[in-house]
């Protein structure tokens, strides 16, 4: 899906599309209804307005385009999903998760984003009963998965692929002691969320054994 139609600020579907020509250059801004209303679109010059919104809404973080350009220059990403390789730089721009595990890795970003795009923070659908039975079976796979990762790590070191090796190491850490693993996921975590995290990781674990081919 094209990112053009996502809100530049919060990633929700954009309904307000602005185009401004400054010094012969075309600048386009896409916003959702809420972000547009918050900032009184019509009264502000667009360029200034994007900066201001980025500051006020994302809390002083750099504007998304800037984030993207730093990535292309090769600056290292702050957080990388060990399963799919999604970085916080790309997530910050596209607001798309690359896999189920990303929900954990970018939980901080998600917490920030949620009030702007969703009604609540907690799932309230009726599929609760469905998952209860599946959880226990997922746990068993941990040791097998660790062994698999260990082998892959050995291969990676042998092939001098240290980027992959680092990812695998982090992944193994995450499996061994999910609570202490602060390198990959958000620094502050309450007991409540880490309890939830387990259920996500267990799912990832169970199935990443199928994902060898990629």
């Amino acid at each position: 899906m094209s990112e053009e139609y996502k809100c530049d600020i919060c990633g929700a579907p954009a309904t307000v599309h602005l185009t401004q020509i400054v010094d012969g250059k075309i600048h386009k801004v896409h916003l959702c209804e809420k972000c547009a209303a918050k900032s009184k679109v019509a009264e502000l010059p667009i360029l200034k307005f994007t900066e201001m919104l980025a500051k006020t809404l994302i809390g002083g973080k750099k504007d998304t385009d800037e984030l993207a350009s730093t990535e292309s220059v090769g600056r290292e990403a702050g957080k990388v999903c060990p399963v799919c390789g999604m970085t916080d730089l790309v997530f910050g721009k596209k607001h798309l998760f690359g896999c189920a595990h990303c929900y954990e890795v970018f939980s901080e970003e998600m917490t920030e984003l949620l009030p702007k795009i969703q009604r609540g923070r907690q799932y309230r659908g009726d599929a609760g009963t469905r998952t209860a039975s599946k959880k226990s079976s997922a746990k068993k796979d941990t040791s097998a998965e660790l062994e698999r990762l260990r082998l892959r790590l050995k291969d990676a070191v042998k092939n001098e692929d240290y980027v992959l090796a680092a990812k695998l190491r982090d992944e193994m850490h995450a499996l061994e002691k999910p609570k202490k693993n602060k390198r990959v996921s958000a620094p502050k975590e309450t007991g409540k969320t880490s309890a939830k995290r387990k259920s996500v990781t267990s799912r990832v674990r169970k199935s990443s054994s199928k994902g060898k081919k990629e």
Partner: protein
Amino acid sequence: MSSGFDEFLAGTVSRESANEACPCVLGTRVRFARNLAGTSFPVRAGTERKNEVRKRIFEASKKLPELADAFYFSLEDLSATRRDFLIECRCISPELSGDGAGVVISRNQRIALMVNEEDHLRLQAFAPGNDLGSAWTSAREIEKKLADSLNFAFSEKYGFLTACPTNAGTGLRISVMMHLPGFVMDGQMEKIVRALDAVGLTARGGFGEGSDARGCVFQISNEYTLGISEAETLALMRRWTCDIAEQELAARRRMISRERAQFADRIARAYGNLRYAVSLTSAESTELLSLLRIACDADYFPSGTRECIDELWTEKDRAHIACRAAFRGIVCDEERENLLRAKLFRETLSAVRPPVFPDFLK
């Protein structure tokens, strides 16, 4: 099981007509977004992995009695025109394309599973008119059956995990396609969009995110999927779409009573142009057809005309004209397309008598 596009094409000739009771609504769709656990979402998956996901979903759906004889298409096998045909039928979104993408469409076209769009699976059920209940029931049933053989990514906190966090949770999006010329002509649409936003709904163009609202067709859908249950979403959509339809009809009545003669004139001209034109562009026919649809709802045409107009609504689209022509062995460029479109309108409207108006001179 079948993958013959020609066979599918032949099956789309006579569609079910809309519900007479709800004049402002063109159709309803219930959609679930789901991903397979343990596999990267399409945005981070290579062709090989996407193919594997498609295979798994196709195989799972072939086991369902509802989809055993369905059409299974791989998007890389379809020409651009055929893909557009599916978009115009609303079976797929404009975003579904590329290697590994696929679609499963049931014989009666009430169910369409998009594979490897933004998420691994986008399960859609359609119903004519505002029959939310039947679309909901069939979507729900298929989803439950598929969940038996496919392990969907799920967390207790975020519910069903989707590529875009705006779909996480229930993954449920209910859309009602509404024809709202009254609001548009009254200049009220912006207000309506803001009001919808306040209650947790959004209005988009007829073909979803980022599309334009040609012919005054809007897609009204729920905005939130997290922190809201399926039942609440359904109730929210039921309540507000009925409200919108009522308000829209009131806006039309106000407009008609305010400028009766001018309105009648526009309708008569729209009918005349569509009935006798030799060449019609897609944009022009959409605008004119929108007027005829209002006229039907205002009883200027005999009953039964709206069904005819609703059929034209899809048949007039570019890829529909091109695919139908290709089916009969005619190669279609833009000029020929416009000629064929005009011919379609001349033939179809010859069965519809001209609109009847009261005498405004009295």
